[in-house]
């Protein structure tokens, strides 16, 4: 009886506490993505009007600046209440292994989320059987974009494998298209690489690359670099001067036939360019990756030692809820991580992505932090440089393995 009273009082206490105080949300969602975050915050304010929400946004695409600020704050002993992070190894390899995050498995059990999120996603979020962040959205990384009318004009079909892609590329070059594949700056080149790797290796071996079962200097993995090099020969030479949007523009303007980019490109084409999915632009899985959904996800975690823990838990509950995800994702141009979200709120492209999300095999993206820790990801740029300057597949593979050893990838 006494125990009951105690727990009741504790509950009441935590409820009372939860309704006041502050909540600081640290993210890199500014500009186009700001309204989506605001929708979530508005929902939170409606539920907990007494809490003052501080929106601590650090601008910079893909969080390049935010992560440096976050590191300074965490090392300085001033962690934000909850911060945005790419789900998977970017969080685990950086902060979970350093014992800076709280285990959120109880929250997942309590909210009944264990069977609301696909198992492949939960595996990516877990470290030693415990879950450390709540995913708010899902983006697909292995998508090939094109303009259907243009392809009809050129008389080609979207290629199904990378070998087919290279044939189509030669056909298009024969028709006077200088660079059939549009490519952008450094990270989009790595983005292309991960789709090539998935297409060449297949989902199982691609996953093995990240858990250490397949070494980077294995002949199978070296073959990825060879294919990658031939794919690069189909791309524009001024790639590193272009943003991903400019690369998409080249496809829309008919200067290139294809672009491999994540599905934020669909958001760009529908919202900024005002095109209709399926008519103004078309999509297909990147060659050789049909049936596989290479995902990346933004998620929120709970750092140890935050000031407003109860408020953060409420925030995480909202982030993982159906209501929260359906408020956020249509605005962000992504799909909900939950499998029970409402398709009618999403456009044609996103509905097709949702169908794939529920049925496809799920693997994680390298560039967007799902499968490798930051320490590997950021040095992968150097591997890319070694390859681009010498075009030596074996040297690049050796360098990748050396870095994997150094950062203890997959251990």
């Amino acid at each position, binding site marked *: 009886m006494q125990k009951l009273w105690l727990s009741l009082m504790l509950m009441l206490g935590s409820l009372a506490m939860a309704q006041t105080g502050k909540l600081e949300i640290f993210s890199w969602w500014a500009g186009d993505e700001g309204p989506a975050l605001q929708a979530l915050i508005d929902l939170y304010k409606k539920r907990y009007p007494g809490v003052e929400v501080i929106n601590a946004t650090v601008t910079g695409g893909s969080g390049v600046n935010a*992560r440096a600020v976050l*590191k300074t704050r965490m090392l300085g002993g001033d962690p934000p209440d909850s911060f945005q992070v790419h789900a998977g190894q970017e969080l685990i390899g950086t902060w979970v292994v350093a014992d*800076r995050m709280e285990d959120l498995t109880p929250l997942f059990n309590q909210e009944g989320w264990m069977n609301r999120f696909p198992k492949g996603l939960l595996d990516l979020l877990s470290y030693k059987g415990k879950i450390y962040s709540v995913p708010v959205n899902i983006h697909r990384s292995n998508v090939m974009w094109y303009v259907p009318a243009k392809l009809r004009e050129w008389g080609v079909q979207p290629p199904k494998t990378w070998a087919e892609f290279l044939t189509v590329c030669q056909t298009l070059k024969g028709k006077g298209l200088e660079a059939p594949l549009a490519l952008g700056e*450094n990270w989009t080149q790595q983005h292309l690489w991960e789709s090539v790797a998935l297409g060449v290796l297949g989902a199982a071996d691609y996953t093995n690359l990240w858990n250490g079962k397949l070494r980077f200097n294995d002949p199978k993995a070296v073959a990825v670099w060879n294919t990658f090099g031939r794919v690069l020969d189909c791309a524009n030479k*001024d790639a590193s001067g272009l943003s991903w949007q400019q690369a998409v523009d080249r496809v829309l303007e008919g200067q290139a036939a294809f672009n491999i980019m994540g599905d934020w490109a669909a958001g760009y084409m529908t919202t900024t360019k005002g095109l209709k999915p399926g008519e103004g632009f078309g999509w297909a899985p990147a060659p050789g990756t049909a049936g596989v959904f290479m995902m990346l996800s933004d998620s929120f975690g709970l750092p140890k030692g935050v000031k407003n823990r109860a408020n953060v838990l409420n925030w995480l509950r909202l982030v993982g809820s159906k209501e929260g995800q359906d408020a956020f994702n249509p605005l962000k141009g992504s799909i909900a991580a939950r499998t029970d979200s409402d398709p009618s709120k999403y456009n044609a492209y996103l509905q097709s992505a949702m169908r794939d999300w529920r049925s496809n095999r799920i693997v994680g993206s390298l560039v967007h932090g799902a499968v490798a*820790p930051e320490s590997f990801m*950021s040095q992968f740029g150097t591997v890319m440089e070694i390859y*681009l300057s010498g075009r030596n597949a074996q040297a690049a593979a050796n360098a990748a393995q*050396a870095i994997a050893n150094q950062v203890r990838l997959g251990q």
Partner: protein
Amino acid sequence: MNWFKNKDTLYGFLVILPSLVLLGIFVYGFIFQTFYTSLTDWGRDPAQALSANPQIRFIGFENYRELFTGFVDARFRQDLVNTFFFTVFFILGCLGVGLGLAIVLDRGPRGEGFFRTIFLFPMSLSFIVTGTIWRWMLQPQGGVNQLPTLVGLPKGEFAWLTSREQVWQVSWNDLPFVTALVVSVVLVFIAIAAFRGGERRRGYIASGSAALLLLWALTLGRTLQPLPFDEMHGFNLAFIGIILAAVWQMSGYTMALYLAGLRGIPEELREAARVDGASEWQLYQRIIFPLLAPITLSAMIILGHISLKIFDLIFAMAGADNAPTDVPALLMYLTTFRANQIAKGAAIGMILLLLVAAVIVPYLYSQLKSEVRR
């Protein structure tokens, strides 16, 4: 206690004491801390890199060894080569353009004040602004490359910031040899200057060391190979765009320095030279340029340390990830704050500090010496 002979000295000491303490902690203390960090393995173990109480082990100069000879640190070595070429061309460009503009302005053209403002103006911008503007102009598909189309020519093809071409490639393994050659050439120059100035002893020491170094370079220096394979590094053509922007920004500053120097040369000297029958070219060659030498030196020091530390201009123009235009300062940022290799980042920082010190310390030394003489 005859330091404080009178109260004024004591007050003076007390007044500067806080800044001495702050300087000691926040400059020298942190330099030492960075140096110590660079000798540890902080960041090698991802589990320790960012933990609240990281276990950090002392590993000596391992990080430095890796940077100069490790397989995956080729990028750092290319960055050092990049810095070298950037510094040389940046300083030559600024001095050349600055001196040219100063000489033209010194002859008192109409609207001198207007032009002076125009030329000095870029310096008032921050490197970030300069970088953003020049990035627009040097887009491979637009900007400068579109200029020829205005007069009906085909558009330019140069990939300003993205070119991957390299010229003047040298193998990293030849570096000990090349360095020894360069140093001995410098020593030979010092020796010649010493003999001319009548300092025989100094001359003998300098020429002796030059001979020893040459001997070493030609024998053992050829066999010393830091890497088991040849690694070629050279001047990245993508840097041309960066150098243009940097020269545009800083040449107004050297112009101002030179103009002040030129105005400081008394008219009597020029008159005297002209009376003696010196041509205009001889006047510059024999009278004016030697008098401008100290200004050249201070301009070189200031430009030199700017170019070694340069970060913001390149960050804004080409981004942090564009390897053809990478420099050690950018790599230090990436290594520390993205790859979490904190000790290695600290090591890069120390190498940068040494490079800057190599430029600044001799200058400070000569300044202090001349002040003491005065």
